């Protein structure tokens, strides 16, 4: 995992394997709090579900599958999780009818794949994650994380620290200070 740039509202990273993409989800899940909304954007096979599985793992849910066919999957636990996939929706009107506000107010962590199809997502407590393929590497991903609202900014700060710590540790182990892009 390599951090390209960071600010209070945005973090750009590259992950080099499915495992790393999954761990990114895990780190986000570790920082999740009730009412947090995570919107995932990216084409088919980019790793949206993988990130969600990482988030779920951190919250204690190990059986997270792509909910394309059920639209919304509820996972109850100490910090409950809603995993939605809007791929099959025809319009944003239908997204509105899934009543995400209710889940948010009830203290769920709400993860939404194809989040751009929910046009009226909240203006705070929201993390927006865009995943793209990194150059020609099949397993590497460019991931941009943007946050809305003060609590989400705090989360991003913690998340950046976690990622920095991890990448530094790795670099120590490899005894290399070179560019991770060419690992």
């Amino acid at each position: 995992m390599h951090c390209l740039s960071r600010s209070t509202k945005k973090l750009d990273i590259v992950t080099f394997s499915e495992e790393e993409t999954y761990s990114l989800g895990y780190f986000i899940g570790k920082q999740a709090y009730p009412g947090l909304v995570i919107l995932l954007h990216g084409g088919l096979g980019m790793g949206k579900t993988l990130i969600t599985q990482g988030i779920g793992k951190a919250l204690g849910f190990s059986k997270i599958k792509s909910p394309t066919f059920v639209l919304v999957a509820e996972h109850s636990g100490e910090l409950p999780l809603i995993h939605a996939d809007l791929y099959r929706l025809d319009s944003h009107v239908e997204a509105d009818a899934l009543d995400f506000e209710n889940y948010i107010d009830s203290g769920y962590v709400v993860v939404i794949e194809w989040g751009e199809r929910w046009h009226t997502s909240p203006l705070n407590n929201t993390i927006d994650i865009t995943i793209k393929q990194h150059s020609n590497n099949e397993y590497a991903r460019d991931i941009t994380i943007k946050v809305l609202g003060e609590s989400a900014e705090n989360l991003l700060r913690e998340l950046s620290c976690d990622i920095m710590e991890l990448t530094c540790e790795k670099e120590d182990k490899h005894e290399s200070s070179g560019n991770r892009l060419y690992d």
Partner: protein
Amino acid sequence: MKVLGIDCTTKFTNIGITSDGGVLSEISLELGRQQSSRLPVLVEEMLSSLSIEISELDLIAVANGPGYYTGIRTGIAYSAALAQALGIKILPISSLEAFVHDLRNTGLPLAPVFKARQNCVYCALYFSDGSQLKPFVYPKFCTAEEFADFLTHYPEALIVGKDATIFNEFSVLPNNILPRSVGRPAQTALMGEYYKEFSVTPDKILGVYLREPDIGPTSY
């Protein structure tokens, strides 16, 4: 006349039973998303604690929105099915009016506010003659800013709702804010008696979502 009142449009599930204008029993529980599974049981428990047979009910009053999408549907689906089975009528009631109805004796204009998505609210303005509420602004969906601007013309209006306190637009107004998060639970049933001539057959009831499905796309 025995009326069962149900309001699931907010985080709270409000149930009340009234008889000839008097409250027999009322309950308000913060059930969140368990509403649909607990509602029938709660109604049964309330009826049996009052030793009232379900067949003695004359009318069901139900809050039909605005509010949570799922709550609106839960309340309406249960009430309509029950009314159909009992062969009685059902009365749709605005959740915003039910929220402030117990304050009608204050004589103040009442402005209930529920938060909606993003920077928007569900709101209304009712005038009171001391005994009855008259809608001046019917329940609507708009930005907090828009409603706050409108309320500058009515500084005497009492803004009702804890949700109003999360918007700066309302806190800067001279209006008093009553920051309650739930109305009196039996109000829906009481309103059932006041407005019984507006009751309809169960198949006629509709949810008032005040969002895209019934108002068309918006720019919000």
